[in-house]
């Protein structure tokens, strides 16, 4: 009897060896005492749980949790379109996955000294900022003074972004592309939250959002400039599965900002499972999702947009889809921006660069130099259904 009690307790604590666990589970079906002892063990462990120091959740967590009860957007009409059917019929995985290195340049390849300095300064600032906003920081415990003090001691990150964008960045050379990727993908949103924490009433939700943005931006920067932080880049290039959960944590119920546009992100279809094999690959995937979000956020007619990851829609691929309700005029303008027609400068040129960054990434992700072929296979694209605009890209699934 004592042995059975001990087994029940060990099973509840998760320390019973696997074979004994299976035997105990089988025993539960037949043995009333085993079931009784398991219930007792569970209640004992629950009592232990209640000795934890009380801590409270912010209201924002409740909002995120309750979103699970909202009806999911129906993607079947989109998945039945000719484009996606074509993608489904023509998708094939590459033999080798992207492992980093491509399109990564040295920091000295940036010809413009001021841009180089800005990239270096920004990286140092973010590296020092990250521990101050991590989950075990004082800011995460609700003490924001030190964080705000550090943020206020530096120029606003938005100013840095604006300075870089004043330069002519039309060139196709890899260094310019790396500058664009590190400036236009995550950084606009990061700057927004950093500035808000800096200037306004600090809160946990913004601190949390800033943490995830900062962590992602650092990975994107290291993947873009290989000599920026070589030791950490080695870690980023190691084999380490990244799950859809990491993306869900960031995007689910998030507030997104892209320069003067703000939007609320809706999700519904994220799955449990790996998306990429290494941090450098995850940085690619992540940057692409930010680019999609940045293209949609300013044009959404409701201020919201959907960000979804679909696992089984395309065999062999994970399909990232961003969609928003948009006017016909905005959709047309977005199409022109994507194709580059009628794009002469300003924000239209910036947005055109966002699409070019996605295209560059598709070449890396699918290990090809033939962009036209990827376009024909509908690996990425834009579509319109009723009054919704859809942007997507397909990435080789981790099998």
């Amino acid at each position, binding site marked *: 009897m004592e042995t059975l009690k001990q087994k029940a307790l060990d099973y509840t604590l998760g320390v019973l060896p696997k074979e004994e666990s299976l035997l105990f589970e089988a025993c539960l079906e037949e043995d009333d005492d085993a079931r009784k002892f398991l219930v007792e063990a569970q209640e004992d462990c629950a009592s*232990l*749980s209640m000795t*934890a*120091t009380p801590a409270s959740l912010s209201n924002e*967590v409740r909002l995120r949790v309750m979103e*699970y009860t909202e009806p999911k957007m129906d993607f079947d009409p989109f998945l039945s379109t000719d484009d996606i059917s074509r993608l489904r019929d023509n998708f094939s995985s590459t033999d080798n996955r992207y492992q980093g290195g491509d399109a990564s340049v040295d920091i000295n390849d940036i010809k413009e000294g001021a841009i180089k300095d800005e990239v270096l300064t920004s990286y140092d600032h973010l590296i020092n900022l990250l521990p101050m906003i991590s989950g075990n920081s004082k800011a995460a415990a609700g003490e924001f003074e030190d964080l705000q003090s550090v943020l206020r001691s530096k120029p606003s990150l938005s100013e840095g972004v604006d300075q870089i964008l004043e330069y002519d960045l039309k060139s196709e050379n890899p260094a310019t592309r790396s500058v664009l990727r590190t400036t236009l993908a995550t950084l606009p949103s990061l700057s927004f939250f950093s500035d808000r924490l800096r200037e306004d009433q600090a809160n946990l939700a913004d601190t949390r959002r800033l943490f995830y943005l900062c962590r992602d931006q650092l990975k994107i920067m290291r993947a873009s400039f290989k000599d920026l932080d070589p030791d950490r880049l080695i870690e980023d290039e190691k084999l*380490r599965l990244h799950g859809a959960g990491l993306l869900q944590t960031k995007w689910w119920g998030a507030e997104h900002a892209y320069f003067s546009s703000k939007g609320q992100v809706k999700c519904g279809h994220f799955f449990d499972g790996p998306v990429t094999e290494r941090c450098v690959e995850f940085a690619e995937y992540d940057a692409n999702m930010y680019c999609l979000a940045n293209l949609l956020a300013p044009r959404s007619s409701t201020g919201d947009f959907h960000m979804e990851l679909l696992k089984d829609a395309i065999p062999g691929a994970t399909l990232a889809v961003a969609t928003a309700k948009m006017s016909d005029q905005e959709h047309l303008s977005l199409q022109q921006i994507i194709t580059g027609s009628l794009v002469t400068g300003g924000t239209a040129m910036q947005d055109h660069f966002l699409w070019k960054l996605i295209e560059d990434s598709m070449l890396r992700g699918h290990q090809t130099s033939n962009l036209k072929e990827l376009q024909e296979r509908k690996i990425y694209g834009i579509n319109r259904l009723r009054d919704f605009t859809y942007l997507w890209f397909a990435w080789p699934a981790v099998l």
Partner: protein
Amino acid sequence: MPTIEKDLWYRIKDGDSSAFGELYDGFAGAMFSLSLEILGDRWEAEEVIQDIFAFLWRKPESYAPDKGKFSSWLLVLTRNRSIDRVRSRKRRVDRGESDDILSAREDQNASDGAEQATASDERSHLRRAFKKLPPEQVKVLELSYFKGLNHEEISERLELSLGTVKSRIRLGIEKLRHTLSTLRT
């Protein structure tokens, strides 16, 4: 311990979102406190809570009444998911061993004087009862329940026999159970 009304799980199983909200309002705090205690990281603890509630909404059938009280099942699930993350973290990052984390929990216990007045009586009593356990039982329970070490690991760390580890866990739990039953009578 916060109580969950019996029919709440049935209503959630039927897709009642207001019941889901009631569950969150009544219980997420206790779950989060536990997860934060184990992980020491607010964002990770929030992820655990979010994941568990997502799991409950998608698969309410994962609980069944014959598994015991819904509240107890939830707390044990929270503990186990949090411990999974600790183990995953240890595999990824070479950290200093949990003496630092252990002392963090001891520091938290020492600051009981500043505990929020909103903590339930039962929880306060349990915390006081836990602190009053013999130190050797506290240590073993901390390592087992809040750090997720198995008996062999505890035995090695504290240089105790396996039998002593098991008996200290059992005795500590029995004392807490006795405290709780005294409180409820």
